[in-house]
């Protein structure tokens, strides 16, 4: 069960305000964010105007946000983000940073090499001290995944940069 943390203004109230603001922004931007048809082919027919459905959704968000704002004062829920300790916050941030670094690594160094670096770095950070196992797993499993995707599913993952050299052409795998 959720614990009683705040009785009045709380994280739910802040979230409700965010939803209300988002809804108002949407209502303002709807006319400029929907393309106008170049020609009206169905002139004379009754069609759903392109901006109507988005306006209904934004209107619903505004109404629900207001209801949530009113209700938030009596909600008894804990803010689990605030409940995170220093270790948890550090771990999540470090993982997000590793993920951010992994994207260019995977695209530029290739899937196998980029993944091997991520696996070794992340497993070391999370307590593994058997580096040989980390390197072996880090190379073998992404390699297996690479070959499986390419041969079995016929889809491409970023290949090795050495793919350009004919002697080690990974398209032969």
């Amino acid at each position, binding site marked *: 069960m959720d614990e009683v943390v705040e009785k009045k203004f709380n994280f739910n109230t802040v979230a409700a305000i965010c939803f209300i603001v988002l809804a108002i922004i949407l209502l303002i931007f709807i006319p400029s964010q929907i393309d106008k048809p170049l020609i009206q082919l169905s002139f004379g027919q009754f069609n759903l105007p392109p901006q109507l459905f988005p306006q209904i959704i934004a209107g619903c968000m505004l109404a629900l946000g207001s209801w949530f704002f009113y209700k938030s004062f009596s909600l008894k829920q804990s803010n689990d983000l605030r409940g995170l300790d220093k270790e948890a916050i550090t771990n999540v941030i470090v993982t997000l940073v590793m993920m*951010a670094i992994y994207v260019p690594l995977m695209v530029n160094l290739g899937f196998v090499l980029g993944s091997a670096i991520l696996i070794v770095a992340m497993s070391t950070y999370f307590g593994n001290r058997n580096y040989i196992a980390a390197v072996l797993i880090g190379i073998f499993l992404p390699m297996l995944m690479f070959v499986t995707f390419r041969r079995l599913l016929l889809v491409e993952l970023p290949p090795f940069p050495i793919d350009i050299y004919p002697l080690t052409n990974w398209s032969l795998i």
Partner: protein
Amino acid sequence: MYEAFLEGIGLALRLDTMLYMSVGLFLGMFVGALPGFTTLMAMAILLPISFFLDPLLGIPFLIGVYKGGIYGGSIPAILVSMPGTGAAVATTFDGPALTKKGQARKALEMALFASVTGDLTSDLFTIALIGPIAAIALLLGPPELAAILLLALIVISATSSGVFVKGLLMLVVGLFFGMIGQDPISALSRFAFGIIEIESGIPLLPMLIGVFALPEIFVNIEKRASSLIKAEDLKVSGEGLTWAEYKGVGRTLVRSTMIGTSIGMIPGVGQVVAAFMGYAAAKSASSHPETFGKGELEGVAAAECANNAVNGPTLVPLLTLGIPGDNLTVILVGAFIAQGMRPGPLLMEEQAPLVYAILVAMVIANILFLGIGYVCIPFFAKVVTIRKSFLLPLTLVFAFAGTWVFRAQPFDLGVLVFFGAFGYIAKKLHFDVTPMAMGFILGPTLEYSFGQSVTLSSGNLIPYMLFERPITGVIFAITPIVTYLMWRRSARLRKQFGAE
């Protein structure tokens, strides 16, 4: 329908289908057996594999993961009182006590046989039910479909975990994300904000992996603990299950199957509640309720049979009306859409043999499930000891690889991370992402049906619905009542069984 069913049997009886299902079952049980790694995460991460396979390979593969995952959670629940998935929480009441008595093998085999019994029976029920419901669904036009979709979306938001208004807000957010890209009626570009990559909409696969898999990874990395369990604690000891013991819980299995099947057809309730209800019903019907919680084999059978009996019936509203009942079936919708099979009333008309083939494959999966589960019990018991320090980066790598193969665009990796962070924050602030994912998937269909209804009504929508489409009017009229009843029921069940 009968001809389609026979054709479906012919289509399903393929060696490669069985092979992929077996792989799916194995992977599902593997992930299910890992505490903290949920079936949902396994399905989200393995979803891309199903995208690039034949429908009769990809969807049964994913269904294998689904079935295997629900059962896999019972293994650590029985051995070390650590449920691999939420559905196995009720199994911890009696499973560990049986292990302490030296009857671990008996308990694991009972869990397996009860799971297969519940799953198989509910699958047969699903096959029998889907034809007539699909025939009724075919009579529905765009206004009725729009009304049913709206009803389903609101009901799912009401029954999602947490507060009703928060579920509704997440639904609206999902509908907004679904609007980004193109208007489904006139194909006009909207809310793209000049970003070319989202001109055709937010990519489905990175979004699904992001909201369902990454938050689970983030929750797991909050603590660095690598492995909490010693290998010697995971010894599968004792004698196996006897026929007399299985026969002895026959009534419990029938009761739990009925409970699981009924729960499966109600959107948003799911396996956790079914397992608790099955367990509570078995205890209250028993002539020796005092033995429950102290190592009663019937308790394991009741919970495991009920949670697996949910699996088949959740597909009934999905395949006939296009309405996924929970987060696991949302992922299945992704797989169906990727295969060019849009779940809904027309699916059975256009591709009935294929749908029946998938359902028949589900029945066959139960037989494979029994074989794989029985042979691999000792292996899955050891899975719990695998270090998280290796599993977490590997899961992450799989999530990124799956996202990349979708369109081979670095932008999609950004979408994955964005939705991962969004899902994690939502989880921590008690917002359920399931209504959001459903709104995202069903939003364009809802808008299209709504647009068609406006055209059909010649601009007079309300009189048209009231006088010319009375079913639509009735659905709209009952929406608040059904929503209230479903909300009250799910809130009561959650309160009773403490299941989020």
